[in-house]
């Protein structure tokens, strides 16, 4: 995923739909609606070299004229299930 390839696209559209994960989308909506944050959601992701777990953490990052924003950080190494 290069920044120019994903700019202004819906999260569930990018990367050929690899991010169209119902658990992730539901957590993202929860962040927007309830000022909620989640830590290290484990998601299986298919890299060119094969499938591997990634950990996604999300929190509300900014509220201004542009509306609420969500910042997602993605860990790609040593990602083990820890629960939310």
């Amino acid at each position: 995923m290069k920044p120019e390839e994903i700019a202004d696209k819906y999260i569930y559209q990018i990367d050929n739909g690899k991010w169209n994960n119902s658990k992730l989308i539901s957590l993202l909506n929860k962040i927007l609606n309830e000022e909620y944050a989640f830590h290290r959601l484990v998601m299986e992701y298919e890299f060119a070299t094969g499938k591997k777990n990634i950990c996604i953490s999300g929190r509300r990052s900014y509220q201004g004229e542009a509306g609420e924003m969500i910042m997602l950080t993605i860990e790609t190494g040593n990602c083990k299930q820890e629960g939310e």
Partner: protein
Amino acid sequence: MKNLFNSTEIATIFLDKEMNIRNFTPEASTLIKIRKSDVGRPIGDIATNIKYKYLESDIKQVLDRLIMKEEEIQTNDGNWYLMRIVPYRTSEDVIDGVVVTFVDINQRMIAEKKIKDALKYAESLINTIKEPVLVLDHDLKVFSSNKYSMKNSI
């Protein structure tokens, strides 16, 4: 009419079709070094306080094409103005010269710069994170991302 003209507080210069100065508001003298005795002189002969060398050619272009022209220009001391050159039509709808106005847009330009600086700062912060970062807007569209793509990080 003259009082109205002088009370606009907008730097305005009226030129005839030969680009000679016909009239101006007092504020115009802060941008163009113009005095009452300059009425009748060509605008190109007058020194300016603006960092813009195309004033004369822009005026000529407006007189030739009769299409308004706008430029954001800066004075030598750093203030921003919106310069607008508009053909002047008489009540008989005859082109009789141009009107050049300079509207102070300094506060707007300062605010725009602050926004640009803040965006650059935010971008530089997310680029210091060594893992991929996505920022989504309230529609769940990607607003920005850092330089660490998923493909590079494995």
